[in-house]
């Protein structure tokens, strides 16, 4: 069996394991649990064999192309850690290994439902993005033993961060409370469905989603302002409160402007990569026409959205269940839509956009009105289901014998392993290697800079536990955000930005 078959087996094993772990969470049948663990172990063994097979295939190629190399050198240079594909596979391997260790150490299978999806999504991403999987020899800059140490330690750290992400997320779900009434949800989506049926061809529809959140929150903010008034009228001399709120809103608005503009345009860039000139011209005209209005509406809507959520969340210290469920629902749906896009491209024989993005053209932004409306309808139903029944997930987690304190502890522990390993293996060894290869230990290259940002986020996590009031929930959010930054450092930089580390560029 060659390495790609073995990888395929492990991918399927992890995805099946994920489903069975979720079933275990729901039904808590010990045989289901054992089956899930067994599948995970099977997948892990298969993946280990796959990595070994790939190493040997690489070794053969290396010795053929570089016959002058010694056996030890050839072994080192052919280690399967040399490009995005191999490193992603190694990341999944480390993650599953780490998870299996935790499962055996704490005799608890409940994390499985949160970690196997990360593994599954990572492996599915390999298929979706169409990244090259062929074994190619190393360019001179990568012919170094530093490659091995730097990459291995970085991915062990990433796996530890992924674990903290899962436990952080579990913590947030377990401690969230649902407050909104059903009518709030339906108000949003009625407005939505009408708007989107009318404008389903426009590249700015995604921005409209964001504005619609503003409606959701607007209904809700009224209640919160009332509550805040009641609280502040009780305290004496608390005039600082209103000022603080205003300043925070202004400050956050400024940050949000940059964020939403970049976000909208990145999305537009994907859509504009059409595969024939006529379509391209049509979309470009439409894009330009709507871009000004779109931008303004987007800016206003998003600022409103972000500020209100953050006021509610940080200053008034309330939960935002709707926010989390809607966001995760949209994220999952968009992922699935991208998957459908990929299938459609495969079937039609055209290539997905070069930089790894796909434009939702198979579903939400399809040129066929029927498919578009049907997609929006299923999106609506999906989001409603998540909002309405997401609470069940929380019950499942609360039903397991894991205290939220324990989750908090695992989050901290995995970061306290990941952080030193990342500092040494990722930043320090990366800097030393850069110094040997290029003469600069730090060049503010996008990859290096984003690694530093990741480092700051996790350093922030470690320090935030010392801040008053930063226990539990806020800290868990930092752990979750930290891993999102890790993903961007790992993949986003390569695919979206340009630089010495890049595989793609933003043109």
């Amino acid at each position: 069996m060659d390495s790609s078959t073995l990888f395929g087996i492990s991918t399927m094993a992890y995805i099946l394991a994920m489903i069975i772990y979720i079933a275990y969470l729901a039904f808590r049948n010990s045989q289901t649990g054992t089956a899930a663990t067994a599948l995970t172990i099977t997948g892990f063994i298969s993946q280990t064999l796959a990595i070994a097979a790939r190493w040997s295939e690489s070794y053969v190629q290396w010795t053929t192309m570089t016959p002058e190399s010694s056996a030890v050198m050839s072994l080192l240079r052919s280690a399967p850690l040399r490009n995005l594909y191999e490193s992603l596979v190694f990341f999944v391997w480390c993650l599953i290994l780490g998870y299996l260790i935790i499962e055996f150490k704490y005799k608890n299978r409940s994390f499985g439902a949160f970690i196997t999806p990360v593994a599954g999504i990572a492996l599915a991403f390999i298929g979706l993005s169409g990244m090259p999987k062929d074994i190619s020899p190393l360019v001179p800059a990568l012919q170094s033993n530093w490659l091995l140490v730097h990459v291995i330690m970085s991915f062990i750290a990433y796996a530890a961060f992924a674990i903290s992400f899962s436990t952080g997320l579990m913590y947030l779900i377990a401690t969230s409370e649902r407050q909104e009434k059903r009518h709030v949800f339906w108000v949003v989506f009625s407005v939505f469905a009408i708007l989107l049926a009318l404008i389903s061809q426009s590249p700015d529809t995604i921005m409209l989603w964001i504005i619609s959140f503003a409606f959701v929150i607007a209904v809700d903010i009224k209640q919160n302002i009332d509550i805040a008034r009641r609280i502040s009228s009780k305290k004496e001399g608390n005039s600082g409160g209103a000022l603080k709120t205003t300043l925070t809103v202004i400050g956050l608005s400024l940050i949000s402007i940059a964020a939403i503009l970049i976000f909208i345009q990145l999305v537009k860039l994907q859509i504009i990569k059409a595969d024939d000139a006529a379509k391209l011209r049509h979309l470009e005209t439409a894009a330009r026409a709507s871009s000004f209005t779109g931008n303004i509406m987007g800016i206003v809507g998003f600022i409103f959205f972000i500020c209100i959520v953050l006021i509610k969340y940080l200053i008034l210290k309330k939960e935002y269940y709707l926010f989390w469920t809607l966001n995760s629902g949209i994220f999952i749906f968009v992922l699935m839509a991208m998957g459908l896009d990929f299938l459609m491209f495969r079937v039609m024989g055209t290539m997905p956009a070069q930089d790894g993005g796909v434009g939702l053209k198979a579903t939400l932004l399809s040129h066929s009105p029927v498919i578009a409306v049907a997609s929006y309808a299923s999106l609506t139903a999906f989001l409603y289901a998540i909002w309405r029944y997401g609470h069940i997930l929380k019950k499942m987690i609360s039903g397991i014998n894991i205290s939220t304190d324990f989750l908090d502890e695992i989050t901290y522990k995995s970061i306290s392993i990941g952080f030193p390993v990342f500092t040494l293996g990722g930043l320090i060894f990366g800097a030393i290697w850069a110094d040997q290869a290029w003469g600069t230990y730090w060049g503010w290259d996008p990859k290096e800079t984003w690694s530093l940002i990741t480092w700051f986020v996790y350093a922030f996590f470690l320090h935030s536990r010392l801040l008053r009031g930063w226990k539990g929930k806020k800290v868990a959010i930092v752990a979750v955000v930290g891993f999102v930054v890790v993903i961007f450092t790992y993949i986003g930089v390569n695919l979206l930005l340009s630089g010495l580390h890049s595989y793609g560029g933003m043109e």
Partner: protein
Amino acid sequence: MEENKNQTLTDKIWDIFSSVKFAVVIFALIALTSIIGTIIEQNAAPEKNIKLIGKLFGDSLAPTLYNAFDFLGFMDMYHSWWFVALLMLFAANLTVCSIDRLPLIWKLVKEPVKPLTDEQFKKLGKKEIALKGKTEKIKAAAGFAIKKAGFKFLETKEVDGYQLYSEKGNYTRLGVYITHLSILLILIGAIIGIFFGFKGFLNLPEGKTYSVAFAQTGHLTPAQEEDMEKIIAALQSVEGSTLKAAQELGMEEQSLKLKMKRYGIRPLGFSIKCNDFNADFYSNSDMPKTYKSWITITENGAPVKINGKEIQEIEVNTPLKYKGVTFYQSSYGLTPGGWENSVFKFRVTPKDGKTEDIESGVEGSFRIPGTNLTGKIENFSPAIGFDQSTGKLFTYAEQMNNPAVLVSFYENNKRKYGGWILKRSPETWKLPEGHIMEFVDLWGIQYTGLQVRDDPGVWVVYLGCIVMSIGLYIAFFMSHKKIWLRIIEEKNSTRIIVAMTANKNREAFERKIDNMFALLSKSVEGGK
């Protein structure tokens, strides 16, 4: 934090700088601004970023916005005054935080462990076991067990027994300080590098010797460029000695040095010559396999031996260091105007003769030893390709990716045959009569692109990295542990109560103590 009307301004400033909140704000600012620097391409041609800004804000606004961002320093933001200021604030905050908290931590480190009172045992006591046996023996066994666990202990006598107490790892509380100190070391090393270091490049053509390297400078006027050429020429002729060059140019050495700084010219203090450069590719592709430069360093006219060799090799990941300057293999290319002085190098093996190396200038003909043939160079391509659709040969790259030379062979002044000989294709080396003519190199046409670096701060940075690794290990994986054993004599047995604290990894410590107790029970019960 108390709002004390008696706080002076310095107190207030100290309070801000010693707060973790401030640290968090600075982290966030540095992180967020760094993100901008990864999206706006740093030190790039203006068109690239104008295009990018146009995509985000609209094409009409783009040029104005570009100028605005440029003015604020975003085009080279990591060296802008405000970014450096943020880093300085970060360093100051780190220092103040550390100093502020040091007295308390030092107290915790230095304060010796004291025996616990009975109430404290009630609060902190974790485990209790009762063992059969004489108290003295059990005390000795317990003491032995603690020692085995790595603790040197002290003993006091109590009314009804004894107390053994111990601590270790006090100094691990300083792990955090070591880590923070290492950050400061790294920042200091970086600053030393910026102020006292040099980073530049040298494009060294094959066969040429240089005694200077070049740094990026801003835009130079044509007059300045001419001036720069004059200075370089003068420096070249005197092996880089600024004193002699100043004399030659008729100016003060100091003013020459200022001009050199302006033009980014850095004298090396020695000369470096490229004997040869070669780029190897993986077979059947243009993917580079190795780049290698062969270099000789001369000082005061004589070649310098490094590791007993006069010729040094520079490859990617294997730089050359000499007298504080490091040369890195960075790039390569074709020297403009290098054609005329280049030399073709062939290796000829006549049908029944021995192999010989021959050379030829780019014009003129050359004899092929061991045969009656003379060769004439007709044409050359650095990267020859064959266009399937037109059936024509063409040059597909500006680098020596697939060098080929068109040679015509003459016998008795009559053209016998000719063809393209490709360096990378041995089949093209075979001549009709069975002779083999290998095209080895066109020497003199390539230059090796070397990155030149002199960074006195790099050792401080490396030291900082080592200190950081040590600090992180201590801070995360070692802890300050204390243990107290209260041994109480009872009628027929001895009761032991254990209390322990650890400032990190408490469960691991508890498990260790549990193991220790299991062993202790076994050793006592098992009879001694």
